[in-house]
């Protein structure tokens, strides 16, 4: 079943994130993708939205499609103006990409090309409007297209540390939905109970919610997130659970799997981020009993 149909059916969806290489050696990407083929509904391919120069998501998405795996690719505004974005969106359709995520992008100063010039010609709402316009067969300058693309397009909601910030994040996400986002991906979920409160508030969005599962890979990473992301809700108890485990790596995989299992029935699906541990995705899915 395609991502679009699964989204409409309400069946639980499992998406796995896979980054393209910083270079042209795609062997690891292909191997990792083959390992989970048939076990996930689609692979999400980020672009350079985290500020690190790498092979474009468009190429990564096409590689996934070539492997028989449906792709969802990120598009974002920091590095391309409206011409380049629209051109790539048309190219994506022609190359078989059916799903887009309009993503936020990291500040240039936090990336690996700090001397680059940010573009930010459009913002996320502008980009969603561009996708919507292209689908109607008209570009942002009002010119008619020779053949219109079609996509299932979603976007993200920002993290929040308190109820006021959550209300602001939901207000912006609602604007994105009104501009054409047909699903919303949340920030990483570490505390399902806390997340349930958000989910009840997020009903106002009226679109499927996909929760991000962030694989914690070490006590150090857990502590970093707990310290620097007050909105993450990563508890000291979780840190201690990893610290005291005899096999910490395995415990991290287990935590991710358990979080997915706990979210089943509460959200439309999950997107699993493993950040370099894509080869461990199968273990996470085992722990999630998927």
């Amino acid at each position: 079943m395609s991502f679009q149909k699964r989204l409409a059916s309400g069946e639980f969806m499992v998406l796995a994130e896979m980054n393209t290489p910083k270079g042209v050696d795609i062997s690891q990407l292909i191997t990792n993708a083959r390992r989970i083929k048939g076990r996930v509904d689609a692979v999400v391919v980020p672009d350079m939205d985290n500020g690190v120069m790498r092979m474009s998501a468009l190429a990564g998405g096409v590689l996934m499609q070539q492997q028989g795996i449906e792709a969802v690719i990120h598009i974002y505004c920091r590095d391309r103006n409206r011409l380049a974005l629209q051109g790539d969106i048309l190219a994506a359709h022609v190359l078989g990409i059916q799903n887009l995520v309009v993503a936020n992008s990291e500040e240039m100063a936090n990336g690996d090309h700090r001397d680059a010039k940010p573009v930010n010609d459009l913002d996320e709402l502008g980009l969603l409007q561009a996708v919507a316009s292209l689908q109607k067969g008209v570009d942002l300058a009002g010119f008619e297209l020779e053949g219109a693309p079609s996509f299932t397009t979603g976007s993200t909601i920002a993290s929040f540390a308190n109820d006021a910030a959550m209300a602001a994040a939901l207000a912006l996400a609602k604007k994105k939905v009104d501009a054409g986002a047909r699903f919303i991906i949340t920030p990483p979920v570490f505390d399902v109970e806390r997340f349930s409160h958000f989910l009840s508030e997020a009903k106002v969005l009226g679109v499927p919610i996909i929760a991000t599962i962030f694989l914690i890979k070490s006590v150090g990473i857990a502590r970093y997130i707990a310290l620097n992301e007050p909105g993450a809700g990563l508890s000291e108890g979780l840190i201690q659970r990893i610290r005291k485990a005899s096999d910490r790596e395995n415990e991290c995989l287990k935590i991710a799997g358990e979080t997915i299992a706990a979210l089943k029935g509460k959200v439309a699906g999950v997107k699993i981020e493993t950040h370099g541990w894509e080869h461990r995705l199968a273990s996470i899915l085992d722990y999630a009993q998927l």
Partner: protein
Amino acid sequence: MITAERKPLAEIIDSIDGCRRIVLAGCNECVTVCAAGGRKEVAMLASALQMDFMKRGKTLEIHEMTLERQCDPEYVEQLAPFIDQVDAVVSMACGCGVQEVVRRFKSKRVYPAVNTKFMGASERPGVWAERCHGCGNCLLGLTGGICPIARCSKRLMNGPCGGSSKGHCEISNDVDCVWQLIWDRMKELGIEARYEDVIMAKDWSTERGGGPRKIVREDLQ
């Protein structure tokens, strides 16, 4: 100087239509020099606003002020005695001045009456042209004192494109080809050899790559 042009009257009226009393605040610096928001322009805009309100059977009380520098808190403070008596401030300063008034008077509505354009110079009476982009990493020393970032349509750093014709840019005969100007200047100075120097990919982190910019001088704090 920072250049500006007055907004269309209809746009200014639209922003203050619900107001009965305003301060119309000009600035004695850049916008005075480029004839967009100095004392004279404040008086002209005040008359135009009042005429429009009168024609529509409304009244608008305008307190005209032209501050020495609207981007300087010391002078913005001069608005304080009048601020509680008005519904809004209409600023004829550049965007820096508008925001300094906003920073000082947090509960007061402030509307811009000019569009801030660019950092430029007066070429001849009535003509101002862009000269500096504020990239934060000046390369005028490499380009004969003429800036390709501010003055080349494509921001080319190593010579003209194919659209340079008889000293003009292809976008308009009113626009000089900056690389023609740079070449002529280098020849004049006898430093043509410098033209061969390659300017590598520019570091834009000093522009907006590093986010909104700030200068901090500890010796002056």
